[in-house]
């Protein structure tokens, strides 16, 4: 009898065949980054230039696209992947660079070194970091290479890079040395020294280890270098930036839908739930509820109909993890949801996604269609007798709809207002039927857990927080972008090692996690490990993954006000504490930043905040005061300065500034001309004067002055 897994393997071989056929005439593939962020940086134009060159016959190369690799600060990016050779990534590619790449690299084989991010050194070490190779031995190997290369002063000649799944999962850990194209398989950390000394220095491959000469005759895709990815682990983002998200064949080639086939062939729903429970996976949407237990509760309910929902409403105004995951690897979420449906006994899935994410929606639609065509969705999936279908529903720009009960109301076609829980959606959810709601990232973890096992997964992370977490790292940090780290990584490692430190070498002030429901942590919290409990005890929350770094130029009172403005605006108005309370808090904050703060305002904020947290109906109100309370806790002196001394140390709150003209003034009259209220007087070539009574502190004069003659304090 053919089982689902047999069907899957056959499909996989066909998929790989199709990929080979497509690239048959070319020995190279060009991957252009085509996620929303890359497109915003101009990658569509780059794509056209390459496609045009192929059309005109200038180059014989296969051009395709991939999702976000997480290097937001240097986009657009382009990879040239070549059979048997180290791939090369170009960063900051504009039209001119693209043409240069065509002329020099693609036609003559010369790498355009100034724009290469990796692939341009004498030798490259590529270590497989496919989700299925990520184990502790792999980590030791990376460290051994790092150490030996440093000790032998090889840093200028050799680079260490990481690749996605090489498709040799039974041979791991795997390391390939380029340009020799020699692969070491089943490698152990203690043998690394030998490879460095004999192979890298003397140029002689270490024959006594397990080696494959002519390593792999196929296209090897590399996602990054040790600089930015040393502390990272890519489980959720395992395929992001490595495969073409609009082509199911590429997903199949990297073991896509294998977990689903495995589940349908060998596992009962109970066993699936047991596996998810044992993995220790907790919800990534913010609250961190154990996923396996949620599944078990929903499975227990008996009903003629049940629903599975993927929450892709990603409302935190500084976060784009879920969007990037969907744009880069939509099938992983679909596969997770089908497995979830099988486990709880549901035949209907719904993805609720923000309308503001048109590209993600488009890719999901394409992926759903392809999955249906290949028989992973629909009736009798892979001949197993199990049926499941998924539908997309668009949100319409309401933050509160990320809350699960509000989300359910929205899918039902109502105003997205939350209701008190219990009953939880697992008992009474969509159309009053038992409903399983999980976040995008939670779903994306499921296939890996099934294929690699709960034991493997639960080795990663800390005691109570397992696996990895994806963060959208932004704000005043050098390397902004999408990152994924094992739970337990410290904030310091994220800000300084992965993020590369503060922009323009300014001073660090705070890191904000959890968006409008979270808090701001100060310097003394930098060694806090990222896990659910530690972040809470430091005064913030894990949240869904927004992480904003704040430097000395930002005012913490203003940051708190920013988030409160957001939640106040987004409050759905159903319950009084949240609707009225946030309004009152905002009024107080506004008067503080305007220099009209009064003695006792801080205490009032604390009292109000505490009350709103206790009395609000849903998570929005219960967490809305967090940004204010955490900044009061960690940056109380800034509040006091605003209120008592009418000073803003970051010089951010314009109302608290005084502009004065110094002796540097040459009398050029530029300031006088721009002043909108005619507060500046003085004749040409004479020192000017600002009338403080009239000045509205708009800063226009300060911005136009070319002589550094206006002081702002």
């Amino acid at each position: 009898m053919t089982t689902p897994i047999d069907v899957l393997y056959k499909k996989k071989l066909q998929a790989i065949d199709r990929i080979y056929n497509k690239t048959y005439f070319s020995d190279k593939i060009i991957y252009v980054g085509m996620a929303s962020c890359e497109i915003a940086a101009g990658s569509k134009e780059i794509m056209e230039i390459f496609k045009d060159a192929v059309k005109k016959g200038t180059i014989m190369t296969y051009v395709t696209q991939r999702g976000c690799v997480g290097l937001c600060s240097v986009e657009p990016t382009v990879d040239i992947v070549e059979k048997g050779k180290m791939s090369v990534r170009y960063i900051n590619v504009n039209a001119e660079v693209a043409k240069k790449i065509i002329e020099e690299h693609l036609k003559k084989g010369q790498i355009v070194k100034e724009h290469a991010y990796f692939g341009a050194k004498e030798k490259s070490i590529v270590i497989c970091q496919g989700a299925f190779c990520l184990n502790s031995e792999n980590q030791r190997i990376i460290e051994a290479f790092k150490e030996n290369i440093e000790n032998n002063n090889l840093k200028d000649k050799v680079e260490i890079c990481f690749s996605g799944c090489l498709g040799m999962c039974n041979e791991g850990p795997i390391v390939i040395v380029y340009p020799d194209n020699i692969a070491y398989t089943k490698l152990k950390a203690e043998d690394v020294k030998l490879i460095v000394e004999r192979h890298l220095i003397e140029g002689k491959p270490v024959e006594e280890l397990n080696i494959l000469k002519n390593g792999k005759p196929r296209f090897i895709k590399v996602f990054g270098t040790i600089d930015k990815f040393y502390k990272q682990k890519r489980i959720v983002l395992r395929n992001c930036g490595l495969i073409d998200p609009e082509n199911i064949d590429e997903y199949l080639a990297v073991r896509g839908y294998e977990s689903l086939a495995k589940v349908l062939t060998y596992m009962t729903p109970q066993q699936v739930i047991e596996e998810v429970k044992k993995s220790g996976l907790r919800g990534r949407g913010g609250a961190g509820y154990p996923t396996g237990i949620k599944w078990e509760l929903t499975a227990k309910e008996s009903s003629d109909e049940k629903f599975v929902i993927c929450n892709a409403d990603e409302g935190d105004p500084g976060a784009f993890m879920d969007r990037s995951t969907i744009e880069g690897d939509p099938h992983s979420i679909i596969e997770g949801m089908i497995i979830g449906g099988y486990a709880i006994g549901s035949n209907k899935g719904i993805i609720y996604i923000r309308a503001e994410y048109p590209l993600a929606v488009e890719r999901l639609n394409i992926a759903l269609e392809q999955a249906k065509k290949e028989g992973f969705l629909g009736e009798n999936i892979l001949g197993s007798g199990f049926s499941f279908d998924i539908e997309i529903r668009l949100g319409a720009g309401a933050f509160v709809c990320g809350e699960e009960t509000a989300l359910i109301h929205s899918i039902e076609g109502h105003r997205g207002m939350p209701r008190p829980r219990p009953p939880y959606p697992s008992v009474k959810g969509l159309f009053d039927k038992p409903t399983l709601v999980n976040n995008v990232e939670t779903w994306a973890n499921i296939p890996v857990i099934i294929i690699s096992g709960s034991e493997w997964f639960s080795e990663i992370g800390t005691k109570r927080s397992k696996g990895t977490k994806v963060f959208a790292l932004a704000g005043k940090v050098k390397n902004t972008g999408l990152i994924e780290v094992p739970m337990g990584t410290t904030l310091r490692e994220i800000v300084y090692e992965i993020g590369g430190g503060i922009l323009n070498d300014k001073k660090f002030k705070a890191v904000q996690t959890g968006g409008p429901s979270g808090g701001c942590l100060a310097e003394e919290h930098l060694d806090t490990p990222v896990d659910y409990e530690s972040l809470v005890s430091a005064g913030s929350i894990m949240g869904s993954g927004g992480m904003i770094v704040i430097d000395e130029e930002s005012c913490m009172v203003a940051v708190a006000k920013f988030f409160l403005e957001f939640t106040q605006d987004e409050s759905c108005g159903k319950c009084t504490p949240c609707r009225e309370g946030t309004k009152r808090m905002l009024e107080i904050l506004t008067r503080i930043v305007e220099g009209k703060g009064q003695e006792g305002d801080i205490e009032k904020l604390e009292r109000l905040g505490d009350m709103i947290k206790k009395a609000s109906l849903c998570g929005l109100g219960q967490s809305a005061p967090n940004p204010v309370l955490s900044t009061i806790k960690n940056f109380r002196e800034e509040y006091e300065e605003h209120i008592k001394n009418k000073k803003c140390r970051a010089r951010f709150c314009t109302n608290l500034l005084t502009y004065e003209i110094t002796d540097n003034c040459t009398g050029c009259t530029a300031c006088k001309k721009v002043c909108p209220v005619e507060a500046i007087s003085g004749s040409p070539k004479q020192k000017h004067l600002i009338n403080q009574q009239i000045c509205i502190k708009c800063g226009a004069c300060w911005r136009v002055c070319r002589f550094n003659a206006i002081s702002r304090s």
Partner: protein
Amino acid sequence: MENLDSVDLEKMKILKDYLKNFKDKPRVESNLITILHKVQDIFGYLDRSALEEVAETIQVPTSHIWGVATFYHYFKLKKPGKHIISVCLGTACYIKGADEIIAKLKEELKTDVGGVSPDGLFSLEEARCLGACSLAPVVMIDGKVYGNLTPQSVTQIIKEYKSKHK
């Protein structure tokens, strides 16, 4: 519906055809938000007579539809300008000076957020994170993202758009 011009009639026809898909669907009222998205796609905003048509087809009171439409920020209730400018007020953009950008735009376009400039050319809107945080502060005009802006460069961009209509 007496004062609909021919363009609007054309749009109405597209809507009616689309609504046929929902005639006998189970739990049809749950598709309301999906339908409102379509109305906005077709008309550029939630046109009143279009909503009446929707109410009729899926048998939901117009008052309920208005309740839903006004709840969600994404839906526009007024006819927008020719160009839609969304200023990102997400966290990253805020930290990097979105305030100054929006102040400048209000001044240039002589309208508030949510309004249309007197010449009818521009709608000014706020967005929460356009997902281009590394280019912060950013503004999106008709779907095209402009990044690393300053009050000066944004003025220049508006000038270019205005000159297209001279």
